[in-house]
Structures are given as structure tokens and as C-alpha cells.
């Protein structure tokens, strides 16, 4: 019907499948993000490091190029666990900044403008709402971390041969699992904090606070109480511990080898790091459950 005919006509046609509707907010959010030139440039900029890593891998397999650059073949960067850890460490920094820019804008405008009842009055649950909003970060951060990481792994395997790939499958799985753990933590925190404060800039600042100020507190606790358990509130360290386990297992290297690693002797058990990350997720889920509601009840 043409829009100039002012009649109300209810829709009678076919409906989309219920399971796919959580992707609707994802599409709308990406449309919004595309309009931001800064975010687009930042995202493209985040791919520079993976491209450089690909160049390193290529150079490592190209003796004539190394010769041209006057680099002795034996002294060039070796493509191993440390290479991929460093890659992920750098990308995770950029992923954190991306989350701080994008994450708070996902939920807080809906809550601040009381738009949540409009979503939830549809056949669309709170879980779907959170899943939809979280998917935005998962997709975006995946494109910055494990997806290029696995592409680099594939490139290295292509140049090095199947034997290398077979011997280093742990790197591929660690790239994926380590990134996903980080992405989930970031996404949960970003959504929960923005749902809590309902104010975009403050939510972004809080995310920085949770990562950096809490890390400082952790160090202070360790100093004052002469313990190492203060690291339990240092999310970067918890992530680093899990990553080290995923990448290296028993082949642990010295301190400072990758991002987020603390001094040797201050390590906490891996199970404690996993548990602490689990607690963070549960706390964020609880907070989202409290805040994402059709109506907020004042008791």
C-alpha cells in the first residue's frame, strides 16, 4: 500500500524465525557503528598489526628478501608460541579500547531513554536482548583478535608445511579459546557497567577503572598484606594467567614474555584465575538480570 493512503492495516504476512531475531539489534548497531568515521578508522587501524605479522611470517620464509634487507636468516623473528602470544597481547589492547568506545553505547541509551520495555514487549526475551547486544562486541572483537590470528596461523602453516600445523595445533586452539575468554569478559563487563550507570561516558571510564585501577589495588593489597592473592582483582592478570596456560602449558617462559604477565613468584594458580573470571561473569550476568527489565520496580 502506498504511504499516502492513511489507513491502518495490520500485518498478516509470514514472520521471521524466532531464533534469528536476536540478530536484529546486531544489524542496527553495526549500521550505527559504520556511521562513525573514527570507529571505522580505528577498526581498520587495528588490522595493521596482523598485516605486519603476516609480513614477518612471509619474510621469515623468504631468504632472498631477508638477504635484500641484510638480515641474517637465523636472527629473524621465529614464528612460535611467543610470536602468537605477542600478536594476541597487542591485539587485545586494541580490543580493549574498542570495547571502551563501543560497549557502553550498546545498552545505556536504551536504559537511559527507557526503551527496554519497547524491546521486551515484543516476542523478544531479555536473554535475546543481551545476546544481541553482546554479539556486536563478540563479532567486532573476534574480527580483531582470533580471526586474523587464525589467518596468520593458516598462513604460517601454508608456508611451513602441514607438519608444523600438526605440531602446533595448540597455538590455534589457544588463539581461539584465549580470545573468546577475553572477549566474553570484556563484553560482560561493558554491558553490565553500562547497564548499571546508564551513562555512556561514565560506563567507558568505569571499564578503564575496573581494568587499571583494580590492578593498582591488587598490587597495593599484595604489598600491604604480603600476599599474591591481590592479583585476583586484576582482570588483566587473570586473563594473562589463563592465556599462558592455554598457549604454553608446561613450557612456561620467564616473566614479561607476553602482555599481562606478572613477576615470577607472584603467580596465582590457574584454577584460581579461571574461578575469578567465572565470578566476574556471574556477577555481570546478575547485574544485567537486575537492570535489563521491562519495568524497574521501586520496592
Amino acid at each position, binding site marked *: 500500500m502506498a*504511504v499516502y493512503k492513511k489507513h491502518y492495516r495490520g500485518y498478516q504476512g509470514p514472520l521471521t524465525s524466532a531464533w534469528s531475531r536476536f540478530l536484529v*539489534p546486531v544489524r542496527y548497531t553495526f549500521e550505527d557503528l559504520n556511521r562513525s568515521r573514527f570507529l571505522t578508522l580505528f577498526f581498520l587501524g587495528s588490522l595493521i598489526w596482523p598485516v605486519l605479522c603476516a609480513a614477518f611470517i612471509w619474510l621469515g620464509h623468504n631468504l632472498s628478501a631477508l638477504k635484500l634487507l641484510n638480515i641474517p636468516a637465523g636472527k629473524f623473528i621465529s614464528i612460535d608460541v611467543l610470536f602468537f602470544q605477542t600478536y594476541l597481547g597487542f591485539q587485545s589492547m586494541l580490543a580493549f579500547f574498542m570495547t571502551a568506545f563501543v560497549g557502553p553505547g550498546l545498552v545505556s541509551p536504551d536504559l537511559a531513554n527507557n526503551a527496554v520495555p519497547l524491546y521486551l514487549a515484543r516476542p523478544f526475551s531479555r536473554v535475546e536482548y543481551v545476546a544481541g547486544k553482546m554479539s556486536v562486541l563478540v563479532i567486532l572483537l573476534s574480527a580483531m583478535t582470533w580471526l586474523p590470528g587464525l589467518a596468520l596461523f593458516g598462513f604460517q602453516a601454508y608456508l611451513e608445511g602441514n607438519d608444523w600445523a600438526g605440531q602446533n595445533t595448540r597455538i590455534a586452539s589457544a588463539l581461539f579459546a584465549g580470545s573468546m575468554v577475553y572477549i566474553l569478559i570484556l563484553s560482560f563487563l561493558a554491558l553490565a557497567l553500562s547497564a548499571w550507570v546508564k551513562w555512556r561516558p561514565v560506563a567507558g571510564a568505569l571499564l578503564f577503572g575496573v581494568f587499571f585501577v583494580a590492578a593498582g589495588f591488587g598490587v597495593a593489597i599484595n604489598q600491604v598484606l604480603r600476599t599474591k592473592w591481590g592479583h585476583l582483582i586484576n582482570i588483566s592478570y587473570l586473563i594473562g594467567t589463563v592465556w599462558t596456560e592455554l598457549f604454553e602449558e608446561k613450557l612456561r617462559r620467564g616473566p614479561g614474555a607476553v602482555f599481562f604477565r606478572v613477576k615470577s613468584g607472584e603467580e596465582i594458580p590457574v584454577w584460581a584465575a579461571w574461578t575469578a573470571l567465572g565470578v566476574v561473569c556471574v556477577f555481570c550476568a546478575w547485574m544485567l538480570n537486575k537492570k535489563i527489565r521491562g519495568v524497574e520496580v521501586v520496592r
Partner: protein
Amino acid sequence: MTPVIELENLEVRFGKRVILKRLSGRFSGRAIGLLGPNGAGKSTLINTLLGFHKPASGTARVLGHDIRKQTRAVRSLTGYMPENDSFIATMSGVRLVRLMAELAGLPKQQALEQAHEAFVYVGLGEARYRNLGTYSLGMKQMAKLAQAIVHGPKLLFLDEPTNGLDPSARQRMIRLIQEIRDQGDIHMILSSHLLRDVEETCDQVLILKDGQIAAYCDLEDERRSNRSFLELETRGANGTFTSGLEQLGCEVAVGVGERLKLVLPEGVEVRQLYELAAARNVQIRRLQHKRDSLEDIFLKAMGDANGRL
């Protein structure tokens, strides 16, 4: 016929406070007005029917679907216009309505088409590409209505739709609600504390007081029965006029100052009263139907603890 809403001992609590107290009843009107003073539980009832509040005990059915077990089905059949401002300020009107249509299950293209239609229908065609944050209060109300009807619900919940509207905007809103009601394929529940809004748009009214049903009545029946009650102010009325009325089958009571109250039997028209008056040389100076207004019904319900009308 499946009732629009069916309440079965529905109780809703916020902490220790009981907001809805074991409500029961079956309501089948096309347009049901939900009346009550502030804090009576009108919005809570709507929010509970939409699944936003979990009943502490009992349940309710909306168009035959249980609100506890079939929340998704209930929400796919309903449209909701919330009382407060609900929008995303940085989104254009038509984009928000399209988003809501897609969330209700409309495919992308159809959602866009329906969003435009809904916007033009509520009279915001010219403003549909503007950000919602720039809309006036009246425009925001219309945008909320547009998002509520965009997917073609079977039941529309309108929570204080005329809140904050100036008289002309209120008239526009009332006219739109009447139009939607008269289309015939949509039921609506309109919550308001403005009796006039309910009177103009609803055919049944459910009055809540302190979380309980104070009254439920069919306004159309009330109006119909009231039409047979007449009050006449006459000049020169005498016994012959009164007996003439009785011969027509009217029940007559003589009041002070030549005022008559009468009940017209079926088949007798008002015209016949004028003919009789002319024949008996009596002037009918004023004739009015008894009008038991919604205000009377409401006040009676508020005063009557049992809520019987």
C-alpha cells in the same frame, strides 16, 4: 468466544507490598477502559499481562494464552504503548518503529513498509526521518502509538495515551484510537485516570481500587438503559397530560415545579411525547435523557467497597 483477558486469582507483589490482590474475572470487550486513581494498579496489571512482572500467585490469560507459560505468544499478539517516554533519542522515528517491527518478526522489507505506513497513519509522515529526541511531547506519544500498532497486534495496551497532550493533540489521539477500535479486528485495553478518555474510546470499563476490582461495567449497556429514562420540564402540564403519558405505557413520577420523570417503554418514541404535549396544549421546555455518566459510575465504585454497580 475467547475472552480478551481472563484473570484467575492474580496477585502481584513488590517485596512485601501487595499491588494486585487476587483479581479474578473474564473481560471480553472490544475496548476496555482501565480506570482507577493513581496507585490503583492499572499499569501493574498491564505490565503483568505483558510478562514484565511475575505473579506471586494465580495467573492470567491474554486472548487465551497463559501469561506465565506462553509469554512469547502473548507478546506476539499484543502491542504496547508505555506511559512514560520510551524511545532512543538518537534514532529517527521511522527507524525505531522499523526496528520494533523486525523484533516482532516482520521481515526487513515489510518492516520498513509497515513502519512508514504506521508513521503516516498517526500523522507524523513529515517528521519520520527526524531524530526522536527532537520530537515534541505530542509527537512522541504518536510515535509510541505507531510502534505499538506497526506489527498488527490483536490486542493493544495503551497506558495513559493522552498524557501531557494539549487539547488538539488529545483530540487527534482519541480520534486515532477510535479509528483503530472501529476497524474491528483489534481489541484494546486503555489505561487512564481521565474519565473522558475512557468514555470516548471504550465500550467497557474495569475500575481498580487499591489493587482490587472495584467495578466492571458495559458502558454501552449503561448508555442504552439510560436512554429510556427521561426528565421533562414542562409548562401547563396537568393531569390529562400525565394520564396521556400513562396511556402510552410510560411510568411517570411528578416532581416539583411541573417536572416529570418518566420511563419510556420499548416502541415509544420521544416524538410521540411532543405530539401528546401539542395535543394537550402543554409546552415541553426541556427534555433530557438521564445520563449516568462514567464519573457517576466511577465515584460509585470508589465509594462502594463491594464494587457492585
